[in-house]
């Protein structure tokens, strides 16, 4: 998947001279995960810039660049290090268009490695997307495959508003597929049905799609058809796809790696309760990370939703 991300950068920089890449170690090093590999050689040090080691600098300079004709694609090295940038994101980037009544705008993409599962050190395995989804004026996107990473990153860069692009670290190298470098974007604000089924809907995103698809295969072996939806854009949520699916299945499981309390899963559950309560034949189940700190890596697999937990939750909705 990491090659698909580098490829999307390359395509868009080739075709749009206003796209610039900024971040820590994105230049000669090509990013700590190699997501910007080769870009500085191809496009030069002006368009692919290592920034000083300061996240507020990265987000704040992106605001300045974006309001003045550039399209910055900024890398925050790990999601756990985004917090110094939040002041710029919340108070400026996402409300620039609103508060100037459309006079200035911020077409910025902030890319961040997301989630755990790769034995990384402390603060390197966070999935705190719910904080970001709470910010008005911000899109939050999280791809779950190389092809979707490529197409959604292109869409994010072309989007006229700020987009947070969360890249599940577990998928960077684990997931390989052929991706056409054809510059074709995928739609934002749309989820993807990864597998059709009529008995239970499972909504998920990011790396948890792996466990969810495995759970769906296990359920299938037991004669239960699970429909798997990759949310892809976490904010705003594509409610139509979810509601259509729940109307069909009458059962909903939401699986995500992030902590449960006030998480994106809660938003989905509320949405379904508001619009489709009478379609439900069983209480909604959430399979999530626990409401504690993402543990150091010895226990990270115990924190993250497992196939067994997802299967059990689906069975619970079917009262099996």
């Amino acid at each position, binding site marked *: 998947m990491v090659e698909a991300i580098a490829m999307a950068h390359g395509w868009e920089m080739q075709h749009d001279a206003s796209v610039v890449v900024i971040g820590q170690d994105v230049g000669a090093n090509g990013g700590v995960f190699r997501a910007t590999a080769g870009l500085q050689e191809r496009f030069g040090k002006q368009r692919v810039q290592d920034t000083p080691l300061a996240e507020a600098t990265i987000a704040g300079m992106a605001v300045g660049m974006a309001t003045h004709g550039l399209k910055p694609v900024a890398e925050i090295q790990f999601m756990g290090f985004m917090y110094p940038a939040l002041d710029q994101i919340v108070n400026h980037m996402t409300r620039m268009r609103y508060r100037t009544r459309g006079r200035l705008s911020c077409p910025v993409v902030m890319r961040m490695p997301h989630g755990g599962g790769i034995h990384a*050190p402390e603060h390197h395995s966070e999935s705190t997307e719910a904080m970001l989804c709470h910010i008005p004026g911000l899109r939050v996107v999280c791809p779950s495959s190389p092809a979707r990473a490529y197409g959604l990153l292109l869409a994010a860069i072309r989007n006229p508003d700020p987009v947070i692009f969360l890249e599940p670290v577990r998928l960077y190298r684990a997931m390989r597929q052929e991706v056409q470098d054809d510059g074709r974007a995928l739609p934002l604000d749309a989820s993807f049905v990864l597998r059709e089924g009529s008995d239970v809907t499972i909504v998920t995103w990011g790396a948890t799609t792996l466990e969810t698809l495995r759970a769906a295969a296990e359920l299938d072996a037991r004669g239960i058809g699970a429909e798997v939806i990759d949310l892809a854009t976490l904010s705003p949520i594509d409610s139509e796809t979810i509601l259509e699916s729940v109307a069909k299945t009458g059962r909903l499981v939401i699986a995500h790696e992030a902590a449960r309390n006030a998480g994106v899963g809660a938003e989905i559950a509320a949405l379904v309760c508001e619009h489709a309560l009478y379609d439900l034949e069983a209480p909604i189940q959430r399979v999530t990370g626990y409401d*504690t700190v993402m543990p150091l890596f*010895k226990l990270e697999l115990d924190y993250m939703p497992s196939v067994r937990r997802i299967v059990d939750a689906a069975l619970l909705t079917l009262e099996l």
Partner: protein
Amino acid sequence: MTIVAEFTIRYRRILDPNGQLVAPLPEFAQHSAELLRMYRAMTQARVFDAKAVNLQRTGQLGTYPSCLGHEATHIGVGAAMNPDDVLAPVYREFGTQLWRGVSMAEILVYWGGDERGSDFAGPRQDFAWCVPIATQTLHAAGAAMAFKIRGERRCAVAYIGDGGTSEGAFYEALNLAGARALPVVFVVVNNGWAISVPVAEQTAAQTLAQKAVAAGIPGVQVDGNDVFAVRAAVGEAVEAARRGAGPALIEALTYRLSDHTTSDDASRYRPAAELRAAWATEPLLRMRRYLLELRLWTEADEQELQRQCAAEVEAAVSAYLATPAQSTDAMFDHLFAELPAHLRAQRATARKYATKSSGHH
């Protein structure tokens, strides 16, 4: 126009790369036992570090940030501090931590992915490793404020790297420390590289020491590979801070002889010639030359020291590898003083679904 402010940054070196004295010896360096104690500690840090890298390479440790080349800075700082001072490290200062009584096994437990490594049996008051960049400088300033309010003759020491001096939190800590004359010393470990970004691309400032000047704090540069210079400069700074004379910043010029961490490959961005040249000025070499010349040390002593360090490291590795796994309950322990009810339910779920990697099996 009138000049309203001027500043000078001094560079301090006592022992040059050839092991020759280029400045008068400080008092502490006039005792052979103390010299040997520092040299042993530097060697111990290096032997430990090599083993930790090896453990990572063989899949027995997580990502690990090597401290190769930083030994003089680490031991100089450790030796300058009092036991009841407070250390706010970054994540690489194993030499200082070992000097202060953090155990090798604790270091390995933490970098092996287990929180218990941060529960130091030794320096209970020290902060744990700080992976977010520069945030620890403010914690040190806050601890210093506590000492000041209570009238204690103690000092906080915050480490920070060259890259970290670009973060806002660093400037805020300097500003606060200067404005309130806090007993805190900032040690900037300038090892030349913030992962792949060299200092010259990080800042246009001639030195990092001069960043202190804008906060009204004295800043000095030292040869960070010279344990005498580091200990002397930091020693004077912590003494002054404890006396109530306010904070200071010491920029220790050293070199990261390793990759940033075991996840990094510096050959992608760092000239090989620069690395080769840096080995000529590394800290242990000059200290050994000095000790040999004083006839305080022999090749046989060196071999014996290497053997002792290796044995000590092996014992720590055995203790680390024999550490029983935490159960899933550990994810919930210590989150709050008392666990709220909804988390007790989640703890039960985690137990039910515990994997083989946790202690329930």
